[in-house]
């Protein structure tokens, strides 16, 4: 296990150095992430200017949900961006090389890219949390802070698992584009808002089918203590394990279908 983590860090580190060769990239990506996510917040603020409350959620509470998304997105981009390279890797038969190295192929894929925009996300996300906690009215205790940290990490696990699962479609679709995974990611963006504003179908889809709501709405609700949503939110770590397991299983099944490419 320790060896696995150490090697994963080594692989990511190598990618960091490779990417830092293009220093401009680093800054452009980090700043653009702050910009893109920042625009979302401005948009939220504009909505709440005209209506003070959405389904009982006030502005700063929604900002907290939003911060969950931004942070889990950031963690997954920073540490497991490689999932998004799967389509190209499979399509061009580049998995061959990974399969001949004595380290689990899944971990090699996940660590094959570093998304520096994740850094921008993290900075913005932490900023949002810091701003939000001052405006939402509940008392902070060490227990609640610990819960928050655990839930943020679990939320990232959900996002990583779902990214992996949807990107594994590449093994079946055989196209060099991650269109399917990208559409699902876009669908998951719905979880940036309290999901009670959606119809039943969407709520079920986003809770039970591809549980993107567990990377934001439910864990945020658990931190804010909000009824049934809170109970579900406490399940986030289990959901994370489930999603990661789904992703790993899809990868394993996909690998047995992998056909390399004709050479």
């Amino acid at each position, binding site marked *: 296990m320790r060896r696995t983590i150490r090697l994963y860090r080594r692989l990511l580190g190598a990618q960091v150095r490779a990417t830092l060769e293009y220093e401009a990239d680093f800054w452009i990506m980090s700043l653009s992430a702050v910009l893109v996510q920042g625009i979302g917040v401005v948009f939220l603020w504009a909505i709440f200017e005209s209506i003070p409350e959405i389904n009982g959620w006030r502005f700063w509470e929604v900002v907290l949900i939003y911060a969950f998304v931004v942070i889990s997105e950031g963690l997954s981009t920073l540490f497991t961006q490689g999932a998004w390279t799967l389509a190209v890797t499979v399509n061009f038969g580049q998995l061959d090389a990974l399969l*001949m190295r004595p380290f689990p192929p899944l971990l090699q894929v996940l660590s094959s890219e570093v998304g520096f925009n994740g850094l921008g996300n993290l900075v913005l996300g932490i900023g949002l949390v810091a701003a939000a906690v001052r405006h939402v009215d509940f008392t902070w205790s060490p227990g609640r802070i610990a819960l928050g940290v655990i839930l943020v990490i679990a939320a990232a696990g959900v996002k990583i698992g779902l990214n992996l699962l949807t990107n594994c479609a590449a093994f079946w679709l055989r196209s060099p584009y991650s269109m399917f995974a990208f559409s699902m990611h876009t669908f998951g963006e719905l979880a940036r808002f309290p999901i009670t504003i959606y119809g039943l179908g969407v709520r079920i889809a986003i809770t039970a089918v591809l549980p993107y709501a567990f990377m934001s709405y439910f864990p945020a609700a658990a931190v804010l203590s909000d009824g049934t949503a809170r109970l579900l939110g406490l399940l986030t770590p289990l959901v994370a394990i489930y999603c990661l397991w789904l992703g790993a299983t899809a990868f394993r099944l996909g690998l047995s279908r*992998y056909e390399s490419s004709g*050479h």
Partner: protein
Amino acid sequence: MPTHRPEPRRRSDVDFSASVVGLASAKVHDGSVTLIQAIGLRKVFRKPDKAPGIRGSLRHLVQRRYSEHVAVDSIDLSIAEGEAVAYVGPNGAGKSTTVKMLSGILVPTAGQVHVDGLVPHRARVENARRVGVVFGQRTQLWWDLPVRESLELLRDMHGIDRSRYQERLERFDSVLGLGDLLPVTARKLSLGQRMRADLAAALLHEPRVVYLDEPTIGLDISVKDRVRSFVRQLVSEGTTVMLTTHDLSDIEEICQRIIIIDEGRLVYDGNLQAVKDTHVRERTMSFELEDSLLGADQIAARLPGARVHLESNGRELAVTFDRMTLGARQVLSAVLAEVEIVDMHIDEPAIESVVRKVYAGQLQAEHGGATNSEPMR
């Protein structure tokens, strides 16, 4: 997780290992261990039947049709420890597909494969510790990293200790001239440089089994020579090598055994020398003469059955003969009895002519003349 994990072994324990290796694959054969074994190995690719153009693609989306393409068709292989085998066949014969199944990259459609006691596609990580693969057509280095960094990552994955690693690098430097390449990003290497770096990457961990799939493709003569002498060294140290190539000198310089496949089927499997003896019996000896000669009839008379050819300048003489009926010594003494010679050389039969015969369908039914040709069960 690998399901089957025999104790890791080093090359020095080989003799002992014959009794320890997984029963599924090991068999003592002339005191040697069968390292690579395939029975009825088969791979079928499913290709989409698509009419060309956008309309074809759209129709394919609605109405999915596939046709099956058999790339490897029930191949039996049995390769002993330390053997150097040439795996030969025309383009599209199924060579690379076989190598990918043997190395665990592809899951066979049918059949069994065991390499060093493991099923490669089930125990991928453990398999990767024991085998090395080089694909001439594609690099296995990290594209964006300097060669040195790729090698260090591999060192960490394989858990090779520092001093051993340094020894390996020095070795690679002396045979492959690796030193100059270490600081270069893989993406910026020329083909020949890339191949040398790829060889180092695939052999860093001293694998027992090495698959080389067209390792000399597109290389210039000097790099080819380096690669060949490097592989020859590997073989002499006891590494089991399976070499795919279109370059017949590669085969002649490295391998003792040749396996020929065509359209996914095994066409020939035999000892290289035996193949040459049976199918390439003609040999040519060329002489440079001291004084120019008017005619070669007297020499021809001394060598019944041989063809004697004298160049028009009268100073270059070539004798072509069947090596089974005449010896080089007889030819030499017949020539010396008539003329003084300055220089001579013998053209060894090229495997090329055998392969040509096979491609022309002449060898189809003939198997054998070989020590290892029968599949072991």
